[in-house]
């Protein structure tokens, strides 16, 4: 008897809650706004992923140790970097696919949590790298002549390289002296680079002009960098996805 009465109660109870205003339908504009936010969020994540991908590609190609260890050409470094990056993205895609397919058909916050974590991590890396490890370092180094607070860890890691290598844009030229703006160095900018006696000109100094990106290898003598090797580098765009 009780079973027969239940359905009637059910309808009246639901309709009572609706007509009393306790339960209201979500307005259409909120539904549309949610859809818009999802699409917009996806576009932002996609754009961020593209940016992070191109940035990682650039960093791998220019600075990854495999290039120096195996003395690879720029083209080979590009292909290996692209392959590594692609493998990394495929790995993430596979994990997400397994998580997506592994669900028992009900909503789980875990998938969204992972996506959120990835996004936050990528953003943090970019922000830290772009703001703290470069601009903050540069600003504080001008004042104190020492590495900036935010740049200490980064500086420690790259100290070996930064003491023997200057890489950056030529901002001033005077006779055989070149002033280079090295964004990674904590020394006062721009750095005065003078050819040492053992200089090997890989590209003639006459070919170097203001605005060029050059790399100098050598050693510091006080505030002057004595270069044993100077070469002009190809102009690069860190945000470009196009292989050279």
């Amino acid at each position: 008897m009780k079973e027969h009465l239940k359905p009637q109660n059910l309808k009246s109870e639901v309709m009572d809650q609706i007509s009393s205003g306790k339960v209201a339908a979500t307005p259409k504009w909120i539904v549309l706004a949610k859809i818009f936010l999802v699409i917009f969020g996806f576009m932002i994540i996609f754009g961020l992923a593209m940016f992070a991908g191109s940035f990682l590609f650039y960093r791998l190609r220019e600075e990854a140790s495999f290039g120096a260890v195996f003395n690879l050409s720029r083209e080979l470094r590009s292909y290996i970097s692209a392959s590594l990056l692609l493998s990394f993205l495929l790995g993430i895609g596979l994990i997400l696919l397994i998580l997506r397919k592994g669900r028992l058909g009900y909503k789980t916050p875990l998938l969204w949590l992972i996506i959120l974590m990835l996004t936050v991590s990528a953003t943090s890396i970019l922000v830290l790298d772009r703001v703290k490890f470069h601009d903050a370092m540069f600003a504080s180094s001008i004042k104190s002549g020492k590495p900036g607070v935010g740049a200490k860890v980064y500086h420690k890691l790259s100290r070996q390289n930064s003491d023997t290598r200057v890489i950056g844009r030529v901002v001033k030229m005077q006779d055989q002296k070149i002033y280079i703006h090295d964004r990674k160095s904590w020394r006062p900018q721009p750095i005065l680079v003078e050819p040492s006696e053992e200089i090997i000109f890989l590209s003639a100094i006459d070919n170097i002009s203001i605005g060029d990106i050059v790399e100098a290898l050598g050693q510091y003598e006080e505030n002057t960098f004595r270069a044993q090797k100077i070469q002009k580098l190809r102009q690069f765009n860190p945000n470009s996805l196009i292989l050279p």
Partner: protein
Amino acid sequence: MNNFSDEQVARQVQGGDIEAFGSLIERFEAKMSRYSKRFLIGYEDSQDLVQNVFLKAYQHINSFNSSLSFNSWIYRIAHNEFINFIKKKGKEPMPFFDGDSIFPHPISREDPHKDLMIMQDSRQLEENLHKLQPKYREVLVLYFFEEMSYEEISDILKVPVSTVGVRLSRAKAELSKLYKL
């Protein structure tokens, strides 16, 4: 109102006709009650959950796309509600990973004799249902009691059709074992 399809009535509700929602409740209350009783076998308060299903359906009525099936949509809401309830109660294991989806196996050939045996002895089926894992129990309920197709079940559970086949096949195998005991 009886001449209208479920989707047409839902469109009227979207237009602000609250009474039309009463008509939808009448159409689906028996189905939802049956689904909840068999899926949530051994649980109390299943009728309260059915009420929640209708309240949620009304709350989200504007997100329903009336060019799609209302039947699948409301079953999807019910599925989410029931699964959350089972998880909350914690009486049955609800693993995050589902091997049936991650490592799909070919669907075994349908055995009409086995199906007939299961359907004919529905009383014993109900007795054995609660011994199955929820993911197997649910496909059996939707397939045998709600008489849904693989595609409809796939749409409700949001899993591939092949996974529905695998789960159904394994559920039947599990049931056969229980019958033999």
